[in-house]
């Protein structure tokens, strides 16, 4: 069987980035949650907040660790598998990644040690400072990496001379047209995903009748957070869609499964896109809705895939289905949030078994939605690596296929193994549950109570 090294390199990149993105999605959200809980504890001195912070730090640590090791691979893969990309795009991508390392990676790494192991070595305030810095670091990291990624979708601030990219304005490069939407969308995705995980774990405790005080608090916070964030996410997602329509109309056509340019385009609820024949089979269409959503006008014109030559169209089916999956999960989570709000008002949030069971099983949904969104965006950009400027197929390293195949198999094996291990330890930490913290108003006693779990502290 003949393998195409270019395809293999793309599969490998897709695999490694998909695996990686799971962890930052959760660690950004958890870092913020932990910092907020620690802050609330310092302010209110209610032990339950410290308990929240101390408990979630453990899953955070293993998640962060996985993010570090899988991210390390990515930073070198530009060079190994897309070495022409790294050469051509280095004037833009290089400095952005450089700033990411300097403002985010070092920051996280420098203060993570204090956050994880420094409870007995630094004051409460400095510890809180370290937690805040780690959270800020994770957000800054997302800032730079999304600036670089967005630039590949909507390149700005550069001119091309003899196939060389020259930067004319760094501000335009960083704040390129799609960046603000992508950044906001990703951060919200990460917060929502994390809140769903927290809600799921809390529901599990409530169903098992364990750590009930703890679980009630975190479920309350999670549902409240989701009530606020899910509608905002829908709004930001819509804005992002409009921005994509403006800059990458072909991607939107693939998302909607629209082949012919249409006036008053209908929304395809379901379809089986046929790339060869350039049409859909088994369509279920709601008339005019796509135009209404995309152009905010029922008779607005939506460009179809056929408006561009065949070799400039992305693989439609992947984009089309991923988009529906993301939207579906989004709607489901929004509904769950408001259902939770309604139950809370009725006073039955903590004992509605059906609701809690559904939440318990919802833990992976945020990740699946984030990954699908990622596929919509990245697959939808194909065949371009840098939209409109450079094609993916022109920028891959000319490697022998078997060499890429070996590393690809290596990744599949290693990542499957690691993911299993990660889930095993994640479950283990959840099953162990939070440490008990005496409910007393004296803060010194609280600290002692907390410390006694790790270190013997003589009573004052």
């Amino acid at each position, binding site marked *: 069987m003949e393998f195409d090294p270019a395809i293999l390199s793309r599969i490998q990149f897709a695999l490694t980035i998909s695996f990686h993105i799971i962890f930052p999605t959760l660690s950004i959200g958890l870092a913020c949650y932990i910092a907020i809980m620690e802050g609330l504890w310092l302010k209110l001195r209610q032990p339950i907040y410290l308990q929240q912070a101390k408990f979630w730090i453990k899953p955070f640590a293993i998640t962060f660790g996985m993010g570090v090791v899988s991210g390390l691979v990515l930073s070198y893969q530009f*060079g190994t598998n897309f*070495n022409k990309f790294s050469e051509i795009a280095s004037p833009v991508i*290089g400095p952005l990644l450089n700033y990411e390392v300097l403002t985010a990676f070092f920051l996280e790494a*420098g*203060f993570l*040690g204090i*956050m994880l192991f420094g409870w007995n070595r630094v004051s409460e305030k400095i510890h809180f400072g370290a937690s805040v810095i780690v959270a800020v670091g994770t957000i800054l990291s997302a800032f730079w990496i999304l600036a670089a990624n967005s630039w590949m979708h909507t390149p700005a601030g550069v001119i091309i001379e003899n196939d060389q990219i020259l*930067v004319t304005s760094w501000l335009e490069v960083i704040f390129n047209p799609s960046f603000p939407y992508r950044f906001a969308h990703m951060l919200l995705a990460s917060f929502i995903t994390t809140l769903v995980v927290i809600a799921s774990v809390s529901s599990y405790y409530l169903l098992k009748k364990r750590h009930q005080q703890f679980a009630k608090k975190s479920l309350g916070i999670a549902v409240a957070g989701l009530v606020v964030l899910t509608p905002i996410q829908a709004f930001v997602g819509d804005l992002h869609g409009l921005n994509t329509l403006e800059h990458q109309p072909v991607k939107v056509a693939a998302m909607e499964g629209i082949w012919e340019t249409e006036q008053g385009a209908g929304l395809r609820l379901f379809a089986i896109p046929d790339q060869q024949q350039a049409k859909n089979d088994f369509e279920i269409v709601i008339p005019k809705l796509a135009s209404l959503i995309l152009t905010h006008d029922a008779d607005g014109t939506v460009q179809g895939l056929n408006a561009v030559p065949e070799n400039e169209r992305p693989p439609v089916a992947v984009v089309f289905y991923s988009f529906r999956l993301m939207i579906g999960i989004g709607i489901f989570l929004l509904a769950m949030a408001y259902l939770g709000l309604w139950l809370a008002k009725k006073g039955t949030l903590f004992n509605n078994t059906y609701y809690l069971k559904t939440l318990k099983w919802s833990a992976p949904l945020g990740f699946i939605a984030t990954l699908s969104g990622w596929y919509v965006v990245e697959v939808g950009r194909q065949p371009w690596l840098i939209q409109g400027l450079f094609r993916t197929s022109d920028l891959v390293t000319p490697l022998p296929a078997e060499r890429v195949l070996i590393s690809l198999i290596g990744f599949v094996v*290693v990542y499957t193994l690691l993911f299993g291990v990660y889930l095993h330890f994640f479950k*283990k930490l959840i099953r162990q549950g939070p440490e008990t913290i005496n409910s007393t108003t004296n803060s010194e006693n609280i600290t002692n109570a907390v410390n006694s779990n790790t270190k013997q502290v003589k009573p004052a």
Partner: protein
Amino acid sequence: MDLAVVWLLVIVFGIFVYAILDGFDLGIGILYPWLNKQERMTALHSIKHVWDGNETWMVFAGVCLLVAFPKVYSQVLGTLYIPVFLMLFALIFRGVVFEYRFKADSSKVWWDFSFFAGSTIAAFSQGTILGSVLLGLQVNNEQLTPLWLHPFSLAMGALITIAYCSLGSLWLQINTEPMLEKKCNRIANKMIGLFSLLSLIVVYSFFGNFSWTDTTFVLSVISYKWMILMVVGLFGFLTIKSNSSMQNSSKQAFLLFCSYLFILYLGLLNLVFPYIIPGKLTIWQAMGNENSLQFALVGVAILLPVVLAYTVYSYKVFSGKPDSSAGAY
């Protein structure tokens, strides 16, 4: 000063800091088979809070290379595909150990093995990568198979592994209790001796065979080969002597060995300069776009001192003998 030179210095600095910092924590992994159960826990505790920051220096050096010398970045990584991935896989396996080993019950044996194998393979691959670059990324046929299995590259692999091992034992000597301290002291002496011996062999048998060795050496008055041999011998002797007499603090031995490595490293750079891939690309030929280099340099100039400051702070917070109380946080 010329931008290419400034960036070369930034990268040279980044790689050296990486080699020292991740050197000692990789070294502890390589030493693992010599440690018993209790000692392994102590060793792991002495680095659990710093390994992540240490490894970040490698990402830093890599990204600086991408900014400043994109041609080198793409050629080195594209050509040395196999050892680079070997190193990355190895770093994955040993990196996750820090998170899982403390929480493991039945799987401890596997994590210990993973930590040892991962650290050793990572160190060895780094050495072979360095060796292949020094060979000028030679390719032996149209298959684009680089000479990373050349005797010189393999010798460099061994050399780096032993250097890390020495750093690891010296670090552990500073950061542990008396019992283990003596043991580490013995290991450190052996390793530094071995390192010096192997350096002598490598310099003697390979140097002079490369196109770059006699073209650019600044101090060509004295034969570079004999000079390096002298430096290696002298420093090896001094470090072991300092380390052996227990009156001197272990910190001093650690610093002395670092300066030993630094001098060797500078000597090597001096031989290669102005090439960045010897015999193939000079720093000026490989240099990236000027505007981008300047933009990134502003960040480096402002942020690197800050990074160094808080790195020192976070080392200080955990200075002294480690508390090997409960596994984690």
